[in-house]
């Protein structure tokens, strides 16, 4: 039996290029993983984590469950292409076995089996397989049709905007679009000449046979198979350099993530898996307020990852992000978009300077005595009403407080970190950690979610319970140390990005507000909450742009009809106060005003 024909050469070359590049890339990335990452892999590879990862691969790489949740049509498009194509390959494999028994057949023999059947004298068709293959081809073709429609009218699939692609992506995308229609045509003509096929290729074949003479059919037969093979070859050879790299990269990514590998604030080899697992689906574009409110394109996560991957990242793109994290909650691949952006900034801006911040040594402006420390945070210094409300609360709860920064403290380090100056931020982290240790506190309360996040993520504060003031207040109410007076006020609550998506604190502030009055929710809340726009992470947009984002957000808060807007971040507080016409309060003020003292 022969399984070679000249037209298969483009396919074979393309396939070989793809396999070689994939192997080289994955090997290089794996070898360069830091030692602790390799240890994590060794420790976890033979555990149930691998099984869980396998299941996730089926759910996400084949079925695309998370995309189904974003939009069912978009989900169908992705899963019809991914699952449909895999089944075409798998069922095609079984088909060759059914016809030829268990024997070795070269790859092109499987892929172009329809072509090699008459060549090898197989004329009896198995109707079941013909039907199954036609069915699968129809499913894949429907996915391709949806992809075409998506390019023209993305709103049908719930996307206001789709990604603008680079040249490599366009080549691969065009090749992919033509692969299945060409296969359909080539198989139909084969059916017209040699019979076989089912409802799709079979009936198209008989239609062609009744309208075209045998000479014409014979003339287009070989060229069509050539075209199909060339389309496959182009797709495979451009695939590792284009967005379609995600098809395979998502699989190792899912396994590594299950083994607890994660990107950090310094770039490392693992980041490659996350960066190249991005399919540039563009789901991250719509949640971005820079896009929806300000109309800024080309900075969203999809473009950031693209630029980073092709080494063409500009500081102005890396810096133009609120790091609110809304896109990250929507990403169907689950890429740590914010952390990757942070470590890109650190690579571009971090200038180690040993002498920097030497002026910190010996400074101690703290005051008071107590086991509970209060770190108000820089921003809270600009909201004195929060400070005095916290004083009232501490007094009412009967807690002795050590004030870390009442008379001016040292920044927590997160703002520097957000700007990529991680080495400098370390100095602040060391200074503050030392300060907390020296005063022997066992609990640290902060009013600023920006500080809270860095305390939790980057500080080593074992033995010190770090909490946001909303958590502290809720705990004091639960312990009965604070008694609230219920009012008939209607409040609405704004989730600060760093507190909500950043630290996962959604319920505690809501429970505190519910203890005082009625809470009404804005249209976007919790994980989907809007950013106030004043984020420290963005150093590109100007004041008027910040205010436009803020007004859009406060518009939603005011639409709830609540009498008071409550938030729990001094930065959000100041921004909302400027943008909204409604009374705005920090959660501590609401509590301090309504403490019940018998």
């Amino acid at each position: 039996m022969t399984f070679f024909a000249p037209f298969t050469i483009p396919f074979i070359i393309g396939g070989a290029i793809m396999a070689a590049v994939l192997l080289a890339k994955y090997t290089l990335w794996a070898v360069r993983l830091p030692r602790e990452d390799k240890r994590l892999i060794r420790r976890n590879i033979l555990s149930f984590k691998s099984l869980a990862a396998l299941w996730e691969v089926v759910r996400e790489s084949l079925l695309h469950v998370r995309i189904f949740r974003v939009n069912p049509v978009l989900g169908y498009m992705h899963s019809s292409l991914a699952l449909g194509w895999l089944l075409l390959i798998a069922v095609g494999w079984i088909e060759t076995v059914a016809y030829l028994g268990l024997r070795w057949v070269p790859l092109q023999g499987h892929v172009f089996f329809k072509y090699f059947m008459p060549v090898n004298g197989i004329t009896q068709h198995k109707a079941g397989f013909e039907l199954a293959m036609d069915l699968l081809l129809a499913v894949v073709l429907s996915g391709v049709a949806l992809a075409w429609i998506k390019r023209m009218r993305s709103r049908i699939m719930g996307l206001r905007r789709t990604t603008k692609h680079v040249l490599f992506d366009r080549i691969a995308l065009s090749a992919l679009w033509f692969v299945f229609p060409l296969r359909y045509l080539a198989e139909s003509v084969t059916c017209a000449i040699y019979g076989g096929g089912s409802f799709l290729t079979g009936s198209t074949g008989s239609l062609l046979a009744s309208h075209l003479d045998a000479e014409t059919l014979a003339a287009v037969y070989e060229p069509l198979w050539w075209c199909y093979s060339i389309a496959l070859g182009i797709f495979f050879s451009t695939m590792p350099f284009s967005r379609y790299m995600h098809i395979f990269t998502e699989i190792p990514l899912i396994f590594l993530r299950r083994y607890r590998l994660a990107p950090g604030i310094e770039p490392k080899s693992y980041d490659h898996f996350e960066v190249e697992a991005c399919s540039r689906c563009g789901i991250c574009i719509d949640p971005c307020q820079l896009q929806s409110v300000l109309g800024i394109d080309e900075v969203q996560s999809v473009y950031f990852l693209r630029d980073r991957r092709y080494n063409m990242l500009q500081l102005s793109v890396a810096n133009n992000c609120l790091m609110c994290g809304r896109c990250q909650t929507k990403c169907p691949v689950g890429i740590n978009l914010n952390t990757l952006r942070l470590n890109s900034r650190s690579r571009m801006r971090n200038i180690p300077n040993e002498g920097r911040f030497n002026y910190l040594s010996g400074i101690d402006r703290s005051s008071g005595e107590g086991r509970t420390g209060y770190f108000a945070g820089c921003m809270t210094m600009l909201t004195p009403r929060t400070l005095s409300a916290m004083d009232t609360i501490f007094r009412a709860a009967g807690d002795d407080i050590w004030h870390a920064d009442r008379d001016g403290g040292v920044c927590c380090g997160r703002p520097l970190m957000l700007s990529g100056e991680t080495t400098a931020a370390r100095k602040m982290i060391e200074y503050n950690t030392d300060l907390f240790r020296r005063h022997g506190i066992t609990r640290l309360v902060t009013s600023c979610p920006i500080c809270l996040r860095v305390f939790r993520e980057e500080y080593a504060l074992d033995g010190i319970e770090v909490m946001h003031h909303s958590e502290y207040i809720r705990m004091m109410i639960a312990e009965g140390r604070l008694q609230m007076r219920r009012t008939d006020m209607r409040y609405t609550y704004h989730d600060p990005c760093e507190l909500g998506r950043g630290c996962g604190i959604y319920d505690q502030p809501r429970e505190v507000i519910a203890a005082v009055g009625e809470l009404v929710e804005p249209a976007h809340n919790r994980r989907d909450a809007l950013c106030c726009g004043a984020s420290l992470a963005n150093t590109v947009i100007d004041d008027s742009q910040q205010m436009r984002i803020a007004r859009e957000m406060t518009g939603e808060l005011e639409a709830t009809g609540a009498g008071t807007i409550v938030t729990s971040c001094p930065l959000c507080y100041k921004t909302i106060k400027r943008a909204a016409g409604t009374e705005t309060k920090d959660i501590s003020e609401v509590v301090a005003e309504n403490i019940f003292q018998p």
Partner: protein
Amino acid sequence: MSGLRFGYGINRPRAIDIDSNDLRKSNEILREMPELQTCIGCGSCTASCTAGNLTEFNFRRVHTLVRRGEYRSAYEEMNKCMLCGKCRLVCPRGINTRGVAMLIKRKLGDF
């Protein structure tokens, strides 16, 4: 806080000669951050400054001198900044002061 300093101390008398100063870097900075030209020199940035509360760092002075082409020790001074962002919140002209701080370092440092 022990008395706010808005950055107006007594300096030794001296003259800045704009004609002899090299304004190239200053112009570059103003081109990238034109809003800095709207600064009224109120000193609120210095008064609210976290680093300025602990040291003699004076942001108003640094960016005013840089705009006049006086770059000496501006980079070293700017490195005292913690980028906490209070200055941006208090600026009555809504200037992106954190952006200014980063820009001055980028233009006048060695990177």
